[in-house]
């Protein structure tokens, strides 16, 4: 199978100390490390598994600046044969529909059988790039896939629904799937492996190379504009228990008795 995987490099939000920049429209992630988007790790592993099973080829795509290239190095280290990064000064600030358009253009005429994306990104969480890209490509898609089987000319996908439910759908190839976490066990990648992958070239494409003009991409082409970031509105703010562990533990025991009716 000829496979394509689409990845994104995102800040590690669990550790990130996020600060809204003075313009209110961008976020500074401080010293939070960048990492391959969680869902994309599983999409990449699934792509590599299908490459190995079918003796195919795998190309990894990313839209992003040079500091996001590590995501592609990781793809190359685990088995991608080729990596393509698309970037252009017109692209920052663009929303998912413009990203999908850029990726569509980057794919070009190459006849891929199966396209894989993560089901969503950990930062903006739209879950749109995959299915919108399928729309641009004019091919069938399934989102939130947590099981994938290949059956003569089609893929059988199990989609993860709510409350323990799943849905099985068949897609004719070529097709695009967005991958839910937990579908596989992403393999460990050593630092050495990533370092070795530095020797493999990454194709860099600009807007002109993929034949797009800047009205169709960036903020102008997104038809969606982030106006402001802000801290989340007040929720049920926890009452914090303070002190050394023993003292905190005694307070918790009191709470378990008084509020929880246990102990």
């Amino acid at each position, binding site marked *: 199978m000829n496979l394509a995987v689409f990845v994104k490099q995102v800040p590690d939000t669990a550790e990130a100390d996020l600060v809204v920049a003075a313009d209110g429209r961008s976020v500074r992630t401080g010293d939070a490390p960048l990492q391959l988007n969680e869902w994309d790790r599983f999409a990449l592993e699934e792509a590599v598994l299908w490459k190995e099973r079918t003796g195919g080829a795998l190309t990894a795509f990313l839209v992003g600046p040079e500091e996001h290239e590590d995501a592609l190095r990781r793809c190359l280290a685990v088995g991608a044969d080729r990596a393509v990064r698309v970037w252009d000064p017109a692209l920052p600030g663009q929303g998912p529909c413009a990203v999908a358009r850029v990726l569509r253009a980057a794919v070009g005429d190459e006849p891929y059988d199966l396209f894989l994306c993560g089901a969503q990104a950990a930062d903006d969480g739209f879950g749109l790039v995959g299915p919108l890209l399928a729309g641009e490509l004019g091919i069938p898609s399934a989102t939130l896939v947590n099981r994938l089987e290949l059956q003569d000319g089609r893929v059988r996908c199990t989609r993860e629904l709510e409350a323990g439910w799943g849905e099985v759908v068949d897609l004719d190839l070529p097709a695009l799937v967005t991958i839910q976490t937990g579908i596989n066990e992403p393999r460990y990648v050593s630092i050495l492996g990533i370092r070795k992958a530095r020797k493999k070239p990454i194709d860099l494409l600009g807007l002109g190379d993929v034949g797009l003009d800047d009205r169709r991409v960036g903020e102008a082409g997104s038809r*969606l504009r982030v106006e402001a970031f802000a801290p989340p509105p007040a929720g049920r703010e926890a009452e914090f228990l303070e002190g050394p562990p023993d003292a905190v533990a005694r307070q918790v025991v009191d709470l378990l008795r008084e509020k929880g009716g246990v102990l």
Partner: protein
Amino acid sequence: MSVWTVVEHRAGAMRDVTADLLARAGGLDAGPVTAVVLAGPGEADGLVSGLPPGAHRVAVAEHPDLAGFNGAAWAAVLAALARREVPAVILGAHSAAGADWAPALAALLDAPVVTDAVDLAWEDGALTAQRSVYGGKLHARVRLAPASTTVATVRPGGADAPLPAGTAAVDRVEVQVPSGLGKRFVEWVQEAAGSVDIAQADVLVSVGRGIGDAESVEVAEALAEALGATVSCSRPVVDLGWLPKERQVGVSGKTVKPKVYLALGISGAFQHVTAMKDAGCIIAVNKDPKAPIFRTAHYGIVGDLFKVVPALIKAVREARGTA
């Protein structure tokens, strides 16, 4: 101008989120509300009679290719109807179904689209949405470009009760599903019941990724044993294979409402929080003071769970006289 809500149902049963959608649609003030019911042959009547209040009109389309759920077929039918009636907004749930049909519909209509909105407003002929981003640590206000039709999905929960809109007229609409979608519904599947039902527990000791590794789950098990509690977890712990799926609290796992919920190293992603927020007393331990879990917990402890939990085990044993 009108607002459509796409009625969410599964295997013949209405899903709760439909009430949220109708309330949101009415609150938008962008015209009368049409509830759109897409269903397989013979399925629609039951759904229409069980429809929550809030719709001024119900549009019903039945077709063999709409049986089960096929996001491509739903998108194709909605696109054809939308081209005819041009609703200002088509509203769906940010659910597994909405994640499938809404982007596909936006692609077909070449319409602006926003997903997972926690709040929506109609301002000057365009939609604005509040979204929760960066794992719940920030909110973003996004504005969509004005367009004849905009597609949006909203996060379930949080809507006010819908206002009854009187008796809704029911229109049966003829629809065609294009051949060559390349996508076919096969069947529903359900997880087999496990040996443990965490939804039955009075006290849950729940672990998240912050527990660090599979071996450390023992710390939570020891606390659960001291308390006579059951161990549960958030999604990453299942994804990593540290605990089985039957222990997962969350949208795709179990919804729980114990008397006490101890959240250890759980960041508090929406998918988790929405399934445990109604617990009687929620106590969270996390080393990140900005973790979203502290916006749901009643009590919070900012600290290292490997220091707090052993102290707690000791205190619980003393309190029980089993030290």
